[in-house]
């Protein structure tokens, strides 16, 4: 199974903890892990080489004396480098110019062009444009029909005069057709090919040419499947060299592929990734965020922002206290209450959950309104200190009734909290043992902590209804796409 990059880094960096600068040997060991992680994420071999070289320059001699955790320093550096390689800021599609502006969608077979076409139309419509879809995929059976249905579904114009023959005249006529119907944006769906070949390149060039004859802008978007492997680079490069494109649409990002190909394509062609397609519904289409993608490729979720939040919330002392409480194996309701307070300072808990790596989407999608937290808090606050320390031991029926009355809840709710907390305590104890536990037994150190954390995470995750999607080498769900709730299908 995929073992996390972070825990491997912890191991590689364990010996330098608190010891000053990173020496070459340590950096090498660290970079080896990073290299493997990037390759596992389908980042192209050559691109990985370049990234590793740049990281080496940055990291050798890096001062980690003050860092609580050297791996944080390293991961931050890696994250920054990947974000840079992915294009840094989110880029946008420039469609200024005489109407209609034209967008040509091109890509390999099955990359998701036709689906992306109607999603893009909806996206642009929401931004006040009036798009028209044009069916120039006259190869795949029923592709035209699919585009028509897509257009109908998102409520935009469609121009699909032919189901076979030469698509170039269709592209040409679509411009005047758009003018007639008052559409200011033309989105042309083209045929995919098995791999980039002369026919594909020639056709794309021809369509581009005729679509720009009226003097408006023509933007070519290259649609690429987030699951594509090492081949991505060759595909993108030959297309960029021969036809050229202005942006990339990364499709099927709602899968669990880590999507390293996106980075390769950006790095090799220098073309920004503009959009990400993140689901089957027409609205599952959004601007691409390089920073989020970097974490995803590393398999780390939005951990970076979480760390930053935590750093700004917890003082060092608070952090140590909480750690002690957890490690002692005697995590009481009182400690729990403290942590609840602390987390509230970090922002809405629903948001925090969404940033956790390795958490199931189902868990993230659980509705956590702050009212629920208030009730839990009220119950604990209605307990005496003794009850908080040993609820199972001292709570009898009368006490339970009193707590329920005091907190404005019911005895059932009190019972449930007590029972569930006991289960959780058991788990925490086991985790503490992993992490070194009281008296410093066990593995201890960063490695032990990482192991303990993994365990807790495993158990939390496993408790939720999960499916096969939770397994595998892929990245973590809900990171880049952050699927919205309540959507059909």
């Amino acid at each position, binding site marked *: 199974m*995929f073992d996390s990059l*972070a825990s491997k880094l*912890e191991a590689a960096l364990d010996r330098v903890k608190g010891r000053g600068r990173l020496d070459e040997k340590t950096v090498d060991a660290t970079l080896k892990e990073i290299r493997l992680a990037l390759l596992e994420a*389908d980042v192209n071999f050559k691109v990985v080489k370049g990234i590793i070289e740049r990281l080496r320059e940055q990291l050798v001699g890096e001062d980690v004396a003050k860092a609580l*955790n050297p*791996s944080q320093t390293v991961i931050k550096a890696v994250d920054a480098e990947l974000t840079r390689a992915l294009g840094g800021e989110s880029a946008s599609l420039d469609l200024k110019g005489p109407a209609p502006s034209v967008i040509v969608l091109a890509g390999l077979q099955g990359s998701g062009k036709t689906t992306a076409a109607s999603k893009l139309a909806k996206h642009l419509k929401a931004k006040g444009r009036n798009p028209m879809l044009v069916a120039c995929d006259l190869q795949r*059976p029923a592709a035209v029909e*699919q585009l028509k*249905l897509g257009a*109908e*579904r998102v409520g935009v114009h469609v121009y699909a005069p032919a*189901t*076979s*023959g030469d698509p170039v005249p269709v592209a040409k006529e679509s411009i005047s057709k758009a003018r007639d119907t008052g559409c200011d944006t033309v989105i042309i769906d083209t045929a995919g090919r098995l*791999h980039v070949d002369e026919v594909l390149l020639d056709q794309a060039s021809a369509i581009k040419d005729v679509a720009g004859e009226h003097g408006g802008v023509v933007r070519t978007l290259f649609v690429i*499947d987030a*699951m594509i492997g*090492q081949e991505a680079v060759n*595909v993108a490069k030959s297309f960029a060299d021969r036809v050229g494109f202005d942006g990339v649409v990364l499709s099927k990002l*709602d*899968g669990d*592929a*880590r999507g390293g190909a996106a980075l390769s394509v950006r790095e090799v062609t220098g073309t920004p990734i503009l959009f990400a397609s993140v689901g089957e519904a027409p609205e599952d289409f959004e601007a691409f965020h390089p920073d989020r993608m970097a974490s995803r490729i590393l398999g780390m979720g939005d*951990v970076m922002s*979480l*760390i930053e939040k935590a750093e700004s919330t917890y003082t060092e002392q608070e952090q140590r206290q909480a750690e002690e409480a957890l490690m002692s194996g005697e995590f009481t309701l009182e400690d*729990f209450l403290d*942590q*609840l307070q602390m987390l509230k300072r970090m922002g809405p*808990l629903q948001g925090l*959950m969404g940033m956790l790596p*390795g958490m199931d989407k189902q*868990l993230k999608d*659980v509705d*956590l309104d702050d009212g629920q*937290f208030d009730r*839990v808090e009220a119950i604990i606050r209605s307990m005496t200190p003794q009850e908080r320390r040993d609820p199972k031991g001292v709570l009898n029926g009368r006490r339970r009734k009193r707590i329920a009355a005091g907190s404005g809840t019911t005895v059932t709710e009190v019972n449930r909290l007590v029972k*569930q907390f006991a*289960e959780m305590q058991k788990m925490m104890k*086991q*985790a503490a043992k992993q992490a070194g536990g009281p008296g410093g037994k066990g593995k201890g150190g960063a490695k032990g902590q*990482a192991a303990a*954390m*993994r365990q*807790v*995470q*495993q158990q939390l*995750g*496993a*408790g939720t209804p*999960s*499916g*096969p*999607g*939770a397994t*595998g*080498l892929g990245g*973590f769900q809900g990171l880049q796409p952050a699927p919205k709730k309540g959507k*059909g*299908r």
Partner: protein
Amino acid sequence: MTASSSMPLMLAASALDPVITAVIAVVVLLLLGAGLAVGRRRSGSGDGADGDTSTSLQERTVDDVDATRPEVEEELPEVPDTPEALLEPDEAAPPAVPPVEEDLGLGERFRRRLTRTRNVLGASVVDLFGKGVTEDAWEGLEEALITADVGVTATLELVEELKRRSREEGVNDADGVLRLLKEELTAALGEADRSLGRGGDDGPTVWLVTGVNGVGKTTTIGKLAAVERRDGRSVVLGAADTFRAAASEQLGVWAERTGAELVAKDAGADPASAAYEAYDAAEARGADVLIVDTAGRLHNKTQLMDELGKVKRVLEKRAGSLEETLLVLDATTGQNGIAQARAFLEAVDVTGIALTKLDGSSRGGIVVAVQRELGLPVKLVGLGEEVADLAPFDPELFVDGLFAELAG
């Protein structure tokens, strides 16, 4: 530390209040490891959420039925303006393609198409190891394998094993390395039975075709139908992709091209019942083969995988155990292919893989990892875009193809 040792705890955790879960999760992650260690886990069981299935399926169906969608008629729908260009392969297919020779009858054709990559393996190994069996050469080999999407873990293990064997067996030239490499790769691909399962006389043979979006399921089915028709069998195509717009129209075009019969329901219909009815129809017509198309679905979407499980269960209720459940994998797929195969294996007990879009440039190395790790044999390869470009999987040819780029 392993997931299995903590089963009772998992169960306990399942009953937890989301509030407690949330707080503990955040706290533990933040504090114990500075939130950095990211554990992976295998899901305990994929089939536990059966109860939810029906509701989630309903949601999907209800939400996505597009009322405005044109009706798809049962059986051979008229495909409006059937493009002549589309039918071109068909015109060429039956007469022009050489008669059945072996298995699918296309082995030779396939072989010819791949000749440009023949002996590439030998050439590239000689290239790498020509100056001796050095560390650099091994690294070059690693690079070649990874570039072919074989995957890091599989590659490192393969190369490690090759190094060990070359030391032990005193191999010190390119020819020796080539021999070992072929042995190891072929061993990694296993010696599975790669023929497609066929049933007895008690009803049609059923092949269920699954996969993620855009891998070429429908096209593969069309090609399969062409092969079966050419071999003189009657074929029914069951359109159980009731989700994607125009999916059954696409299958209908293939039915028309190949002389198979299409059985389809309206868009948004329950795919399981579409499959069930397709079997009814196939049986009533005394068809030899029923090939069922399913909607593409990303393997990490639990609901959709549950839905697929239901399609198979319902179909099996009617048809008995299926002769073949194929997973279609796109040869350009990277490391995610393993996750795909694992998830589909878990959901519908896949029996074989059809590797599509394999050609000179995409090498499909992922199937090495898939077969090594999951023991799933590749049964078919789709080579090109024509009807005739479907062939039985040939491990030797495939291994050669893996190194196409090095020699190119």
